[in-house]
């Protein structure tokens, strides 16, 4: 299993890997926003956390469709399916590797983009923390979509369409926890705990559902 984790990590940083593309997409999306809403620093500071979250959500979805499709195309998926090791463990490890290669860089890049958005230190810290807690959930939800769409040609867009509605709760609680940390009356902890609960929930449900979808997609 450790071997699988490191293989996927290696693949994502090798030529054509998705690790760097995700961060680049994140930066580009966030950089485009001020052109749209105008360079008003106060406004940017107010909407900054939300924009970072939406950007991270979109960037995290970017490479997800390849999660199982690449394995299927070269026949590795057959071998992964055949083993006595539970398939959901395999799926979970693949998700972990995918998150480490694409989700974690987003979390690390978010403070820099927070500065661009004129956010203060508190807001940046809160955004980073909520992204750290929330992006695994996006990956795990995305794994289900990727598993469902694995046998489809041009499944890439479909994965985003399938996954985005499911990821909305993550977005809601991620953003509200961040705002709760910045604005005084609202407490930070309750929405953040709900966010963590969502992540844990999908850490269980995601691999199970993805494994079931993979089993039935075989032909």
């Amino acid at each position, binding site marked *: 299993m450790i071997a699988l984790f490191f293989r996927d990590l290696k693949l994502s940083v090798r*030529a*054509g890997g998705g690790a*760097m593309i995700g961060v680049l997409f994140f930066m580009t999306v966030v950089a485009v926003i001020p052109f749209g809403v105008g360079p008003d620093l106060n406004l940017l500071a107010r909407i900054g956390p939300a924009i970072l979250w939406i950007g991270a959500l979109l960037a995290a979805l970017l490479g997800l469709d390849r999660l199982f499709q690449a394995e299927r195309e070269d026949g590795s998926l057959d071998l992964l399916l055949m083993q006595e090791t539970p398939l959901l463990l395999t799926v979970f490890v693949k998700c972990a590797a995918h998150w480490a290669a694409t989700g974690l860089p987003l979390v690390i890049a978010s403070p820099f983009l927070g500065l661009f958005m004129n956010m203060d230190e508190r807001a940046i810290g809160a955004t980073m923390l909520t992204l750290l807690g929330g992006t695994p959930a996006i990956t795990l939800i995305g794994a289900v979509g990727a598993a469902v769409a694995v046998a489809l040609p041009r499944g890439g867009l479909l994965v985003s369409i399938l996954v985005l509605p499911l990821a909305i709760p993550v977005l809601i609680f991620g953003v509200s926890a961040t705002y709760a940390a910045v604005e005084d009356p609202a407490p930070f902890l309750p929405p953040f705990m709900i966010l963590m609960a969502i992540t844990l929930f999908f850490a269980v449900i995601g691999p199970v559902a993805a494994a079931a979808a993979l089993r039935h997609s075989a032909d």
Partner: protein
Amino acid sequence: MSENSMAIRKLGDLANPTRFLALAERVLPWFAALSALFLSVGLWLSFTTEGDYQQGETVRIMYVHVPAAWLSMMCYTVMAVSALGTLVWRHPLADVSARAAAPIGAAFTFLALVTGSLWGKPMWGTWWVWDARLTSVFVLFLMYLGLIALNRAMEDPSRSARVSAVLVLVGFVNIPIIKFSVEWWNTLHQPASVMRLDGPTIDPEFLRPLLVMAIGFTLLFFTLHIAAMRNEVWRRRVTSLRRQAARNAGRETLAP
């Protein structure tokens, strides 16, 4: 006629990567030593000269910020010229040069952005504003990263060369925008004070360390660029040798 063929041979010689490697071997130590010399003198000067009465100590940030910003544009210009070389003259080293320059340019642009940010906080009270100069430099940074990603995404360098060359040339539009953004738009960023048609307006007290640092950084860039080009030539050699090895492998062992 013989003159013509001589010229062609000359061009061919220049294009020969083996020649380039030999040349690089010879000039690299000199470049490295010179840039180290200029940078250390520049560092000494930049910490011993007086602070500005208006900007105080922070003026010292200028001595790294301005050279880095200058290099971020020069590096892109080098890449654009290389891209022309790839598309028009089909010079084999041109693509090598463009590829090797991209990460270095990205690093210097990053440096310009960070030092600018560190300068902006005490002067303007904010890390970042979305004014024309800063935004266009940030766009330049994204372009560098995009080009690096494009170069990495394509396995075969001879095919990706033209594609990325086209992209580099299209992106060159950004360079004059960066240069003149401070004059065309009313921005927070101060206007140019060194590279002006009517001579520098900057006090000689600051100009001296700045120039020495700029020369040092430029030399450093060329040192790194030549070394990175050499690495790229080697990398391609390794690739072609490996393909050759793969072709040879079956034949020996299975020949009856």
